[in-house]
């Protein structure tokens, strides 16, 4: 819909180039959690960042926000509204965080301060990023709680986080995040800790807010169902690298990377004939032992000697659809997993 039209016209809202995050290990080596990744997020677009646990999705988000703790080091370029976030001073970065780019976390149980009423936590964001006076902040806090669908918002301002259920807390988190009208929302598995029914409500809420506030969203998840339901584009991560990226429909219909294919094949589908679920053999590599060449090669049915000798670059093979695999033609020609 309109998001797709905008995509053609506008320049990317967020443009990540060559982002790497490494951590110093005890033996003096550096472990690479995010390995030279690049991607764009268009205005109004929802980008899904997909991968198994430990594939570097969350670290990517935190790296963009420069929230990586001490032994970690981030390099690369994050273009945001004509500036490079990596080059901003800490003070300038604080204006971006929460004001222009908001982030919500996986665990609504722990991401709210347990000893402050929710109104105080919402108003705090407004105090930091807007010039509203006390009455204006209070009014906006009620508006926000209303916006995220908390019933009787005005009467719940004084409540503490422990007085809300998990789903309601995630709504409160979103309300705090959205307080200052950010242009980009980084959502780190916002629904993983929630019931399926609540999960659906929260995702719908995020999409509604995306339309209402015209913001972009980067949604980190390991749930392909969530991606199918919400995202415009997805980027698949494996061992800290992006292995395939493209429009959701296209990637789901015809995955070109064996890993993407494996992920899609491992999800049960309704409506299709009963078939065996595919599973990917083996486990993802640890950070200390990422294989040479293509990191997925040891688990890959298509791999040959070339795959361990050199790392396949992430290259466009059709408009907006890129893949990092030497054998992507072969993989793409395989029977489509979605129509198996």
């Amino acid at each position, binding site marked *: 819909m309109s998001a797709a039209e905008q995509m053609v016209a506008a320049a990317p809202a967020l443009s990540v180039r060559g982002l790497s995050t490494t951590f110093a290990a005890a033996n003096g080596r550096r472990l690479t959690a995010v390995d030279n990744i690049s991607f764009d997020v268009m205005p109004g677009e929802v980008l899904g960042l997909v991968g198994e646990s430990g594939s570097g999705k969350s670290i990517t988000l935190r790296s963009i926000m420069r*929230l990586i703790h001490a032994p970690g080091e981030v390099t690369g370029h994050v273009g945001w509204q004509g500036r490079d976030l990596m080059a901003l001073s800490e003070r300038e970065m604080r204006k971006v*965080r929460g*004001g222009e780019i*908001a982030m919500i*976390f996986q665990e609504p149980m722990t991401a*709210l*301060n*347990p000893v402050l009423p929710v109104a105080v936590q919402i108003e705090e964001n407004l105090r930091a990023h807007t010039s509203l006076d006390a009455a204006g902040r209070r009014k906006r806090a*009620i508006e926000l709680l209303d916006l995220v669908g908390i019933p009787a918002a005005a009467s719940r301002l004084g409540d503490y986080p422990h007085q809300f259920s998990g789903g309601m807390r995630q709504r409160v988190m979103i309300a705090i995040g959205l307080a200052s009208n950010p242009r980009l929302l980084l959502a780190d598995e916002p629904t993983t800790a929630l019931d399926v029914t609540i999960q659906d409500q929260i995702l719908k809420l995020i999409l509604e807010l995306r339309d209402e506030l015209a913001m972009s969203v980067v949604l980190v998840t390991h749930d392909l169902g969530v991606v199918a339901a919400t995202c415009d584009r997805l980027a698949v991560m494996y061992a800290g690298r992006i292995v395939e990226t493209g429009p959701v429909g296209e990637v789901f219909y015809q995955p070109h990377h064996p890993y993407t294919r494996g992920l899609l094949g491992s999800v049960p589908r309704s409506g299709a004939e009963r078939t065996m679920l595919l599973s990917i053999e083996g486990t993802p590599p640890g950070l200390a032992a990422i294989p040479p060449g293509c990191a997925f090669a040891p688990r890959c049915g298509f791999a040959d000697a070339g795959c361990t000798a050199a790392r396949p670059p992430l290259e466009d093979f059709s408009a907006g659809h890129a893949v990092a695999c030497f054998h992507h033609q072969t993989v793409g020609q395989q029977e489509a997993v979605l129509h198996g």
Partner: protein
Amino acid sequence: MTLALPPSARRRAFRLPRKLPAPLLGGGFILLCGLILAVFPSLFAPYDPLAFDYNALMAPPSWAHPFGTDNFGRDVLSRVIHATTIDLQMAVFATIGPFVFGTAIGAVVGYVGGTTEAIFGRIVDAVITFPFLVLVIAIVAVLGPGLGNMYIAVGVVDWVFYARLIAAEVKVQKRLDYADAGRAMGYSPARIIFRHLLPNAITPAMVYLMTDMALAILLGSSLGYLGLGAQPPAAEWGVQIADGKNFMATAWWMSVFPGIAIVIAGLGFSLLGDGLAELMRTKR
């Protein structure tokens, strides 16, 4: 839409649990009584604590002098009551400074970590290497005896214990999601430390504060006993015990009653600390 907190919400926010922990009530009661005695000692003391009565030197407990009299004929009960003022004052003044200062330092150190924390660790080591009492006595000996110098001496040593407690707790809290959420919201480090982390980290320090107040009374009494704290003829429990030590065989009441007062005050603070810990635990 109302802009102020509706009354129901406000009530809900600040409601105490229906059943307060028994130690809290017990400790609170003892300290409340102590506080009343400390503020209005003249209302309860039957005699002037400094008035000599040469007709009743070292008189044993009687209806006229329930706790007996001392070697100058001063009424021990009146002196014990008047000493409440000084002793409770010591409990508060000796601890509140270290509590505030130590908490602030500890919070910053715990949050910043790294080299700052390493340096802080060495300072802590240096301070706790000396036995607490010996260090305080040494400082008082340099500064000169008296209550004011005693507060300074305690403050120089005692803040380390609060700082260590808070630093450890802040180190735990700063790794939690809500701290990252605060950073992701663009809040300044000062705001995250004092507004978000500290309220979540302060419970152990507050419980320790209560214990520390009991210890401060004991310390004040010890220094009084050694002649380094409150100076005679002021009534102070430690001083009274010291005065009575030469007469233990003939006039035990001179030392025993102030001793009991110290025990009761210590008990009050300890109970309050226990109760507070229990209360904070149930709140989580």
